[in-house]
C-alpha cells in the first residue's frame, strides 16, 4: 500500500518551493518598506522641527 502511494504521489516540490519563496520575498519586501518609510518619516519630522525652531 505504501509503495503504491509512493508511486502515485506526484512530485510537486518545485511548486511548493516556489509558493513559499513568493511568500517570503513579498513579506521581506513589505517589512523592508515599512522600516524604510518609518526612517524617512522620522528624518522628515526632525528636519521640519528644526525649521520650526528657526
Amino acid at each position, binding site marked *: 500500500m505504501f509503495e503504491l502511494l509512493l508511486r502515485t*504521489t506526484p*512530485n510537486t*516540490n518545485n511548486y511548493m518551493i516556489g509558493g513559499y519563496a*513568493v511568500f517570503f520575498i513579498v513579506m521581506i519586501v513589505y517589512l523592508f518598506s515599512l522600516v524604510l518609510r518609518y526612517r524617512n518619516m522620522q528624518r*522628515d*519630522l526632525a528636519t521640519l522641527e528644526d525649521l520650526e525652531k528657526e
Partner: protein
Amino acid sequence: MEAKPRLLTVLEAVTGVMFVIAVAMVFFYAPTEAVMGNVQKVFYFHVAAAWVGMLGFMAAGVAGVAFLRKKDFKWDIVSMAAVEISLVFFFISIVLGSIWARPAWNTWWTWDPRLTTATVVELVYAAYLLLRQGIDDPDRRARFGAVYTIVGFISVPLTFISIRLLRTIHPVVIGDSNPDATGGFSMTAPMRLTFFYSLITFSFIFVTLLWHRIRLGKLAEKVEQLRLKLSV
C-alpha cells in the same frame, strides 16, 4: 519621538516564535497529501493569507464607520493601515493559489467565480490607495476613505461565499464540498491542526503589522500637520 511600546516588542517576539512553529508544522508535521503531493502544503499559508486579507478589509470598514461617527483621524489611520496590510496578504494568497492551481488544475489561472471575485477585491482596495493619494485635503481624504472602505467591503463576503453559492472548481475545504470542485481533499488531524494553527499565527502577524503601520501613519500625520503649519 514616540518610543516603541514594550507590549509591541513582546508581541513581535510571540509572533516570531509562533511563525517559526507554523513553518515547522507545515514542513515537518503536516503529512504529504497523496494525490497532489507537496504542493498541497501551499494551502496552509494560502488560506491563512486570505484570512488576514479579509480580516483587514473588515477592520478597515469598521474603522471607516468609527471615523464617520467620531470624526477622529486615528480611525482613518487604522483604516488605511488595515487596507495596506490586507492588500499585501491578499496578493500573496492569490499568487499562492495560482501556483497551487498549476499542478492541481493544469492551469495557472482561470476566470472561476472565486478567482474573479478575489481579483475584484484586490483591485477595489488597490484603487482605494491610489485614489486617496489624489486628495490633498486631509478631512476630505478621510471621509472619502471611510465611505470607500465601507462600500468596498461588500466585495469581501461576496468572495467568501462565491465558492459556496456558485458553480466553481475552487475546492471548499471547510464545510460542504462543491461537487464541481477540483483539487479538494479531506484533512487529517495533523493537517487540521496545522491549518488552524496557521490561521491563529497569521492573525498575530496581522495585529503586529497593523500596530507598526498605525505608528507609521501617526508619524506621517504629524509630519503632514507640521508641513501645513510651516507652509501657512
